[in-house]
């Protein structure tokens, strides 16, 4: 699939200048526990290409609706309640100069309870599509934000995710995380006994979920190259847990480390120059740094204990990891140059799977308390422990969204293990993946551009 589409992103000056330029007219307090249902209507886009039937407008609205639902702050009003139909209504606050398209009837949106409205139109041009879409404040009847996109029709998902990220920026001041991808491990296609697993990749709205590896063995721990073009993962296909890199486009694989025993939990440094990896010496696991070719650069831990699960700080200077050197599994932090490790978790006797937030201030991890596994966050200095999940199955494998406000994780709360998303306060939790088998070990990529 060609990636040569170009976004023509134009906040159209003509209609923005008619509106006072102040941004974020509405500001939702992000972590307020009660303000999680800001009602927004997302209308399917109007098809301006008469005679070319297309589902682009509906798909765009579906994806934006799904993203806003996952975001947790919005309540997307059910489309069945919408009075205005896209093919017979306008998509601007003022009447359109051409074609006699009326302005939006804001009354018909406020009457169904919408405080914000997404409306727009598109034109099909062969394999490409031109989309213009706008976000309105219904009560004030005015435009908050508008954008144009143009590209292959196959890229509708990216356009919709980018627009959802912009909606979030309008309401919260920070860009949303949806123009990104998730990699994860699943047994969904494993025959009968369901023990073999492969790596899958999907957009956050699950719409383009695809199998990436075909090893027909056990695959573990995918993690993203910061350029989003490849994944590191561990595979048993050569009868040893070896570290591979696999290209997303084309699926070409490179064997990075085949040290006897474990080659586990490979993680690229933020600048893409080093790989942190757990290796083994006769049963004893330790964390080392490799260069891009898999050559040893530095050993970081050297003790009898289990040392696993590296997670880089966003500035690439430190690594959080899990070790039971103190007797029980706990989270530690050490310099990427080597040297002493500092313990960070002191509550509970089983703390694993650290994930360093892209914002740098907080580490998410998994703690076993009262027999169940739950997600927690702790500040890097060890203070301020917060519990994010409770009383809902086992919750493991945290991975942060690129905006540092959401965490994807594995939960068994609905039966088989599935991926869920929570916000960083634990207030809003949404199931992301569905279907058979167990979905585990999610990794959230950076923004796609």
């Amino acid at each position, binding site marked *: 699939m060609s990636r040569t589409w170009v976004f023509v992103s134009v906040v159209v000056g003509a209609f923005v200048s008619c509106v006072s330029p102040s941004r974020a007219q509405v500001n939702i307090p992000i972590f307020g526990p009660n303000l999680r249902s800001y009602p927004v209507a997302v209308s399917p886009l109007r098809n301006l290409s008469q005679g070319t039937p297309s589902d682009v407008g509906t798909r765009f609205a579906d994806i934006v609706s799904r993203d806003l639902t996952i975001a947790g702050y919005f309540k997307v009003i059910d489309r069945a309640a919408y009075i205005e139909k896209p093919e017979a209504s306008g998509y601007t606050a003022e009447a359109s100069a051409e074609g006699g398209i009326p302005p939006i009837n804001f009354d018909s949106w406020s009457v169904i309870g919408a405080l914000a409205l997404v409306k727009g139109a598109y034109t099909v041009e062969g394999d490409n599509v031109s989309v213009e879409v706008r976000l309105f404040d219904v009560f004030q009847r005015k435009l908050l934000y508008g954008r144009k996109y143009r590209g292959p029709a196959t890229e509708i998902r990216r356009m919709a995710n980018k627009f959802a990220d912009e909606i979030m920026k309008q309401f919260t001041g920070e860009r949303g995380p949806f123009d990104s991808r998730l990699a994860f491990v699943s047994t969904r296609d494993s025959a009968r006994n369901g023990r073999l697993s492969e790596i899958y990749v999907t957009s956050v709205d699950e719409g383009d979920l695809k199998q990436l590896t075909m090893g027909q063995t056990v695959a573990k721990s995918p993690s993203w190259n910061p350029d989003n073009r490849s994944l590191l993962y561990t595979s048993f296909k050569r009868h040893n847990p070896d570290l591979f890199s696999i290209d997303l486009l084309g699926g070409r694989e490179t064997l990075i480390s085949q040290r006897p025993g474990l080659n586990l939990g490979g993680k690229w440094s933020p600048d893409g120059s080093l790989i942190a990896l757990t290796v083994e010496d006769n049963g004893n696991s330790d964390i080392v740094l490799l260069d891009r070719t898999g050559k040893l650069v530095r050993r970081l831990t050297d003790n009898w204990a289990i040392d696993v699960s590296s997670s880089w700080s966003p500035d690439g200077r430190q690594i959080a990891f899990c070790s039971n050197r103190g007797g029980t599994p706990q989270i530690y932090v050490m310099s990427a140059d080597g040297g002493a490790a500092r313990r960070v978790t002191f509550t509970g006797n089983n703390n*694993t799977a650290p994930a360093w937030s892209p914002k740098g201030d907080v580490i998410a991890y998994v703690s076993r308390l009262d027999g169940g596994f739950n997600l927690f966050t702790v500040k890097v200095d060890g203070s301020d422990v917060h519990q994010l999940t409770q009383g809902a199955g086992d919750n493991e494998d945290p991975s942060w969204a690129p905006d540092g406000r959401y965490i994807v994780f594995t939960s068994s709360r609905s039966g088989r293990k599935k991926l869920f998303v929570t916000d960083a306060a634990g207030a809003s939790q949404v199931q992301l993946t569905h279907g058979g088998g167990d979905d585990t070990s999610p990794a959230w990529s950076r923004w796609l551009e």
Partner: protein
Amino acid sequence: MGKRLLNVIVAGLLVAAVGAGCSSKKKGAETGAAAGAGGIDETGLGTAGSMDRAKHGLAPGEGGPLTDIHYAFDSAELDESARTTLRDDGNWLKDHPQAKVEIEGHCDERGTVEFNLALGAKRASAAKDYLVALGVAADRLTTISYGEELPICQEHTEECWQKNRRAHFVVLGE
């Protein structure tokens, strides 16, 4: 007891079939199982490695000529029962000086996948070290960890978890 004898006989047949087809210790279990798979039924795969069994749609093996040993949660320590079993396993190995063994380390489903892979490695290594201390030549023993990936049972009960916290011994050809 009868079952154990049957397992030994079957294992002997499989070892012979496997021994015909492989020399590399890494590929031993796989090519052996493939070579013997032509006429071998499920019983014949009884002592193939857990990964091979998984590829054939079978649950991982339990026992064989060498009995599994079990571990406490989050631990790679050998308790008295494990040491007793290992002494028996060691004796079998001394009686079959041509046999090589791949020791698999396994965990129950709880906890991080990575921690469990590391713990499985420790468990397999602990069993190997003890067998070596008993006089089995180290070059007859290899280890591999499967962490929580290849459980015998999948229920969320302590009874099942206990079964999964194990070292499993796969007898390979000469």
